[in-house]
């Protein structure tokens, strides 16, 4: 399952990434394998999404979320 398929409010755990370039940026922002992640809200037009990770809130597009594989 990828982050883009996660239901709002459900806790997921980051497992790995499908896109190396994106993963470097995401890991720098504290979105690492083993880290708990939840979807906090979805933008009014359905994209992007806001997630709680590593103690703060991060926004990313659905496409970017689809490169994050959860456990």
């Amino acid at each position, binding site marked *: 399952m990828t982050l883009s398929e996660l239901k709002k409010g459900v806790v997921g755990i980051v497992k790995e990434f499908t896109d190396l370039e994106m993963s470097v940026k995401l890991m720098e922002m504290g979105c690492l394998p083993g880290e708990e992640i939840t979807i906090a809200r979805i933008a009014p037009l*359905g994209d992007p999404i806001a997630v709680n990770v590593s*103690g*703060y*809130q991060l926004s990313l597009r659905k496409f970017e979320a689809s490169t994050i594989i959860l456990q």
Partner: protein
Amino acid sequence: MKTDLRVALVGNPNTGKSTLFNTLTGLNQKIGNFPGVTVDKKTGYCTLTDGRTAEIVDLPGTYSLYPKSKDESIVFSILADKANPLKPDLVVVILDATNLKRNLLLYTQVADLKIPVIVALNMMDLAKKSGITIDIDLFSKKLGVPVIPVAARKGEGIDKLKEAISFANKIALQEESIDVEAIAPQLIAQISSELQLDNPYYALQLAHQHEDIKFISPEQNDRIEALEKEFSFHSQKAQATETIARYNFINEVLYDTVKVPETAKEESISNKIDKVLTHRFFGLIIFVGVLLFMFQSIFAWSAYPMELIADGFVWVQNSLHHILPAGPLTGLVVDGVIGGLSGVMVFIPQIAILFAFISILEDTGYMARVTFMMDKLMRKVGLNGKSVVPLIGGFACAVPSIMSTRTIENWKDRMITIMVTPLVTCSARLPIYILLISLVVPNRNVWWIFNLQGLALTGMYVFSLISAVVVAFVLKHVIKGSERGYFIMELPVYRMPRWNNVAFSMYERAKTFVVQAGKVIIAISVILWVLASYGPGDRFEKIDQKYKQPQYARSLKPDELERAIKSEKLENSYAGVLGHTIEPVIRPLGFDWKIGIALITSFAAREVFVGTMAAIYSVEGNAEKMESVQQKMKTAKNPETGQPVFTLAVAFSLMMFYAFAMQCASTVAVVYRETKNWKWPAFQFAYMTVLAYAASLLVYNLLR
């Protein structure tokens, strides 16, 4: 100013770095550019506890030393390049105490460059409030550097920080964070020995960034490239390995030093606000409301100060005309230079108010939410969530709006935003539209409540937004961008705006605008003044002599005589000759030579139109007498056909021209300043002129 040591501030965005900078330096700071790039360089001076003076350099906020935008690439080159004139003696890394984990990544990278470092642990007040406890001594011991808890907004801990800067060691004493050499052992060893480097992390960074770095020679660059191939080094894989190793170290540092309660209070408040402000339905309505309020205020609050400034300049000009002897030099100074300056100065209130709003929206964290809500919509037309704000600001003035595009990290998105922002109906077009609409559109109501003139004006505003979006969509396919677009962005916690920061931003932007745009606008006003005041050959003398003949003095009153001379001189001035020259080109649009002069003078600034029309129709040109300009224009007849000059077709054709044409020297100047390449303002000028001509031609022929 002589300084004893140079201190660089480094930290993530939203850690209160700028607030700390302002607190340390007070108003004793200046904004410039880093050499060769359009990145704001803020430097200031701070008197330390021991009486020495430190120069403080505020480096752009970044999450890592691997740059994602041009702003961020500055950080590494200043910290690492030994020859850089800005290389600091000491780095203060600012960490957000409420989010230490992510903040520490940058710290470990900077620390591994082996520059003397101290840590300012900011937002301690918020951390305490949300129940986070930090064992500062243990934390400091584990990192091997002084850690100073501060609350920059409240000014707490600043003296301690100054003290720590005074007593900071000249050599780097921090603990090793990760085993850098393990990432690429052979490559690092080889680069270190060939380039004679003593720091393995610097060598590794060179391996990653050598293509974009200016401070290494082409030979060194080629050599690093060859070594990378030899040891099959993969930059992104190495970065991923490094980041994971760093977070392992960070987790080790944090596990017994920081205790975070299950749910942090501060975040829940922010979440509650977000539930309303980014609500599926109300979120967008609130956003439109905020925009309307901002738009309304920019107009309403700036009207009075703008009038004051304009009147003030008129007064100064009149007084100077009385004091100084009449002559060409007085004319140049009073009408050319001071007249041109007043054209710049009247925009100060709008710029200040717009930037007050923008800095409040940014400071509170609402801007990040606007970006979040609008991204999908804006992306469809080739823009970015962050383009919304400059486009809306464009209703006031394109100049500050183009300056505000700096928040857009993606180069292509930023360029498209800069290219289309001047299409949005700015306040300088308003007097022109009002004048022309009142000439040709009847002042009566349709469907009971809608005033026809009001509808026409609203139509021009809506039309401008549509054209900006359409052009953006076309440019999306024309401009090629190499950077990959991301929207991986922090949504900062809501905060109260820092009012002194708002005030400083208003002052700083207004000053930048006056200085930068002022230079160009003064130059162009002087040129236009010369063109309109002098004519080729002895034409002016002949006019003077003609009106000296007694029949004119008998039949005309003195002021009528003066107007007649003025108008005939204008026709024979270089500007008038120019107007006649371009007449064949603009004739298909329905314009005559007089409108031609107004078009030419308007290329300095659109608002010159009304004044020029007034001068041409021999009325003293100022906005207060618009009624009489309107009368003159209404009764103006084409001398050949005897038909009125300003028909519905001509008026709308002219409005189309003003809607599209890049008639604003300040905007051209600011686009150059922001892009640092004449190619962009030239392209913008060309495409807008072509569109203006085509739209006018179309409208004129449709309505004729």
